[in-house]
């Protein structure tokens, strides 16, 4: 189980591969064997009641949480580990930091750097981590701000923005590192209802442009419209998955039916 599985056909290779992922916090088992493949360009929306382990799984993908069994591979690299002399070895903190550089993440609480302006927030990782020139990074940041509709806010501090604007800046910040994969951890859950729409619109726009996205959310509407695949999790396992019209429109599993019935 510890050896890396190399696929033969390059174009068939999924961008994310998770196999038999187990995670426990002390005695509490949160993930009980998750298997999931995500193809390049695919938009996967993970639904499920709170406590189902969906956020934890997302955080395992970029190793913010370590897993206790199984493996997760992103873009051909096993996250958090490497093979040395035919044995699997834990990576150092800096080794893991390198692996995370192609994964963008958007958090529920936005987590913008409050002591930096919007522009500084966006260029921090490209300049400081990816070694981009300041000039290029600023140019790219301005384009991204335009894309999320916040061009005139580049000099503001996060506290001067509404929640929806902050989250759109956070999306631009994650895009600025030109990620191969974007993780969204309940990006609209901390927003006032009237601000959810602007963030979802930005995300739909990204989905259309072929970015690979894994989105943990409670927004059924977004799943219907933007997802290529919907994954329903409950109790630490994937209960059901498939096309949005099947899983949301015609759920097979009683737990999926029970969950979705609350949104009707």
């Amino acid at each position, binding site marked *: 189980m510890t050896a890396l599985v190399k696929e033969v056909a390059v174009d068939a290779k999924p961008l994310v591969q998770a196999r038999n992922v187990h995670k426990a916090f002390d005695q509490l088992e949160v993930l009980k064997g998750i298997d999931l493949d995500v193809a390049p360009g695919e938009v996967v929306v993970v639904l499920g009641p709170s406590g189902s382990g969906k956020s934890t799984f997302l955080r395992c993908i970029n190793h*913010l949480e370590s897993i206790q069994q199984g493996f997760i591979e992103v873009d051909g690299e096993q996250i958090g580990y490497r093979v040395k002399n035919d044995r699997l070895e834990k990576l150092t903190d800096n080794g893991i*930091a*390198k692996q*995370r550089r192609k994964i963008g993440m958007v958090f529920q609480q936005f987590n913008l750097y409050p002591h930096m302006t919007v522009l500084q927030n966006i260029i921090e*990782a490209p300049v400081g981590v990816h070694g981009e020139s300041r000039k290029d990074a600023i140019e790219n940041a301005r384009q991204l701000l335009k894309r999320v509709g*916040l061009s005139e806010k580049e000099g503001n501090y996060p506290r001067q923005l509404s929640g929806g604007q902050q989250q759109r800046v956070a999306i631009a910040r994650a895009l600025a590192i030109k990620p191969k994969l974007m993780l969204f951890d309940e990006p609209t859950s901390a927003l006032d209802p009237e601000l959810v729409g602007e963030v979802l619109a930005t995300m739909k726009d990204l989905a259309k442009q072929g970015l690979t996205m894994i989105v943990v959310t409670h927004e059924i509407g977004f799943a219907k419209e933007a997802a290529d695949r919907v994954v329903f999790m409950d109790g630490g396992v994937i209960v059901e998955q498939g096309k949005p019209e099947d899983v949301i429109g015609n759920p097979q599993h009683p737990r999926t039916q029970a969950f979705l019935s609350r949104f009707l």
Partner: protein
Amino acid sequence: MSTNTSPRAAPSGAADFRDVATAHAPFRYGRLALWLIVTIVVVDFGWIVANNENFGWPVVAQYFFDPTVLSGLYVSLGLTVIAMILGVALGLIIAIMRMSDDRLASGFASLFIWFFRGTPLLVQLIFWYNMSTLFPNLSIAIPFGPTLASWDTNSVITPMTAAIVGLALNEAAYMAEIIRGGLLSVERGQAETAQAFGMTKARALRRIIIPQAMRSIVPPTGNQLISMIKATSLVSVIAMADLLYSVQSIYNRTFEIVPMLMVAVIWYLLITSVLNIGQSYIEAYYGRSDRRNATAAAKPAVVTEEASH
């Protein structure tokens, strides 16, 4: 959005009477009386102090810029600056060690803080000064092996080095706890975000965590700096010619004890006042992102809001 509902929609014209814009504050005789009493007491006290010949104000004026006093002042200031810089730098390292997952690092840091916070600074200074009685020679050697280099302790530990080492190590223990408190005050999500963006721990600390921690580190550090200036007066016991030592050396000769102490007191007050002003500027700098309408807010902040709905 809703169009302005007029505040004048309230019934009857009598409402105009109650418009708070027309309100006035009543004159408060009690406050005036209190001001007068306090002013009289303060002025009277000042008058008494200024006219009491025992304070020897002419002597104070005469010695205020005395070369001995000034050189003592430079020693006090120099010691403060060097000990503080070393203390903050070492304190930062100890704080990071204390918070580390590594048991060796956090154990060492706890031991350091326990020892240097737990013993009086005066005793530590005397210990450093008398190092030669414990270890007559200082040498670099391989443990249990041959000696590579050796010095006479008395030539290495002068009053100056004893004072710097003593003050800096003691300061480091206090600063470590202040800095640790500051680092802990930064929201956990910030470190996690820096991590998710592939920053190394060192970079995350330097760019994301420490700048935010500064807001809660600066005020107690200002306190520490002021305590440090006064703590330098302790080094007079190890024959270090600081401000207090130099005024003492003068009054031992002239017996003008109170006037000479007034010289020192006024200098200490002047320095701490200057530092207080500096501190308020530093606090304003690190609090800049908190002001809602800072810098770029020249453009109205609400314009883009309505577009989305």
